[in-house]
């Protein structure tokens, strides 16, 4: 239960968890010796558990935006492949963009969500060092985006709805990626996803870093997990440009300024819903987080099934067409400003 990776605001929780673990070990040892657990021990455990929940609830109830980013990047946070194992059945992975190569940072495949057959598309960051390196820590190359689009077109052809799970710091900024048209690959995905005649639902499950995230997130319904972030740039990137240096203090300020939390994005109508995470974040209870995700996805797919597929692009267009905030002044005033 205890997390080895310690977030600063979790310090008191981790202490309680260590105590709990010690007590639990004592009880187990006593049981091994054939002794029933002592009354005061069970009472102590119960008390500590209550305390743990209370502290967690408080800490996670008022996460700062920068802490949210840290939770979203927690090494134990469930990733795309975890959710595939937890909520999808019979995952049939499909590889390759048929043009250049296979990008493990973007995973695609057929799967079943309950009784619903669908296509799942998502960024994958990797767990082991080896896997992380192969996946470039979840930063996809153009071939990843092209693979995603090719498989999404398959889904359209065979009338399957599409589920995309977004978890990327951003599209990979490297030489090969540039030379093979990273910008073009993302741009084409934005255009083509907007007119796919099949339901698309997207969830930002961890990091929603800029164009690399949006490249698979032009959907009919978009949600964020409670402690995910979604923004035009990472707080560090923003701090480096606008504050000239990325350090702890500036990153915090940038995270606030960027309005990147689920609540902010809901307020700005960039996402349609927030999927609650278990108390203490998805990294404490992957199954709990997966259940929330499963429920939302199932409901939305059932809802979207009611629309005629050929009408979906118009509705999707209207959803994105509305986004953006500006003022409009009277014509007379406008002409001298032009």
């Amino acid at each position, binding site marked *: 239960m205890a997390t080895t990776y310690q977030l600063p605001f979790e310090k008191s929780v981790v202490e309680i968890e260590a105590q709990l673990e010690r007590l639990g070990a004592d009880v187990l040892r006593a049981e091994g010796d054939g002794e029933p657990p002592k009354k005061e021990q069970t009472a102590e455990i119960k008390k500590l558990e209550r305390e743990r929940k209370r502290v967690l609830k408080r800490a996670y109830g008022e996460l700062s935006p920068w802490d949210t980013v840290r939770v979203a990047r927690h090494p134990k946070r469930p990733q795309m492949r975890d959710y595939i194992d937890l909520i999808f059945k019979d995952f049939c992975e499909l590889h390759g963009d048929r043009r250049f190569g296979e990008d493990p940072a973007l995973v695609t495949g057929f799967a079943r969500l309950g009784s619903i057959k669908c296509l799942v598309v998502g960024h994958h960051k990797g767990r082991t060092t080896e896997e992380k390196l192969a996946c470039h820590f979840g930063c996809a190359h153009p071939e990843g985006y092209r693979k995603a689009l090719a498989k999404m077109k398959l889904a359209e052809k065979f009338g399957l709805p599409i589920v995309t799970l977004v978890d990327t710091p951003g599209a990979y900024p*490297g030489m090969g990626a540039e030379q093979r048209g*990273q910008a073009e690959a993302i741009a084409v995905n934005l255009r083509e996803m907007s007119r796919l005649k099949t339901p698309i639902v997207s969830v930002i499950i961890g990091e929603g870093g*800029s164009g690399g995230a949006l490249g698979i997130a032009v959907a009919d319904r978009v949600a964020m997990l409670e402690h995910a972030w979604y923004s035009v740039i990472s707080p560090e990137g923003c701090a480096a440009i*606008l504050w000239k240096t990325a350090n702890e203090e500036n990153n915090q300020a940038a995270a606030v300024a*960027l309005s990147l939390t689920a609540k902010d994005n809901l307020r700005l109508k960039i996402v349609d819903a927030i999927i609650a995470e278990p108390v203490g974040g998805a990294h404490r209870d992957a199954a709990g987080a997966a259940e929330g995700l499963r429920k939302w996805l199932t409901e939305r797919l059932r809802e979207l099934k009611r629309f005629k597929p050929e009408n979906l692009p118009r509705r999707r267009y209207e959803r*994105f067409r509305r986004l953006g905030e500006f003022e409009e002044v009277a014509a007379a005033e406008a002409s001298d400003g032009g």
Partner: protein
Amino acid sequence: MVGVFFLYKANAGISTEHDPKRMTQVAGRSWTDLKVTTRRASIPEGLWLGCPSCEKMIYRKRMEANLHVCPECSHHFRIGAKERVRQLTDPDSFEPMFTELRTSDPLSFVDRKKYPERMAAEQKRTGQTEAVQAGAAFIKGRAVMLCCLDLTFMMGSMGSVVGEAVTRSIETALDRDLPLIIVSCSGGARMQESGLSLMQMAKTSAALARFDDASGLFISVLTDPTTGGVTASFAMLGDVILAEPNALIGFAGPRVIQNTIRQELPEGFQRAESLLAGGMVDRVAPRRELRNEIARIIDYAGK
């Protein structure tokens, strides 16, 4: 000569808001502006300037008369949207549109300065309201819908207003059955509007899908520099993509890439010519040829 060079250097930092190194190439002031703002008329401010490419001293007036291209080495200086419109369109044919759009501050964004203050300073400096000029126009007698991003205004970054102006330009081209020309030059999506800027990428690209469905012709002109969210949305979606010589075109900026891969980038990387060689753009068109190039493509592909 040395003295003149010094004077140029002293005036080089046109903008105090941006990294002066990045902005020195911007021909921020036209000759008429210069005469108005120069109080001490005895100092010939900026009469001459050093070409960043061939390093020769060139006469500013001559460079400007040459479409802001170095007469010695054909280096293409960066130009603002108004100058771009003037260069591309038939005289007096440009009909400005969407000038009623004004930036708001939906996020109450504050970095080292408040966003509205930053906007006000940019507006004062440039005399413009936003980083875009859009309108119906004629190019060599052909009716077009033209939309030019403006690098001189907040690095041509795309926030809600720029995204809306681009989207409305696409919709107008669709309604009026006009060829669409978008001239891009941008640092990317505007950080000060965060997620909403990001959404402009989806909005403009989705509008282009509809334009494409209606068989509309979209000529995308990429100029120095076109990067980030602008490249990764409408700029790379042209039916025909033209690029100005030596224009920097990419998704990630060269510095970001260098920091990621930790090695020197090859000569010409992310430049128009290497994108042409790599199959990413259709043609590299010198500025003096742009009008002809656009007109020719309209004659082949326009309605």
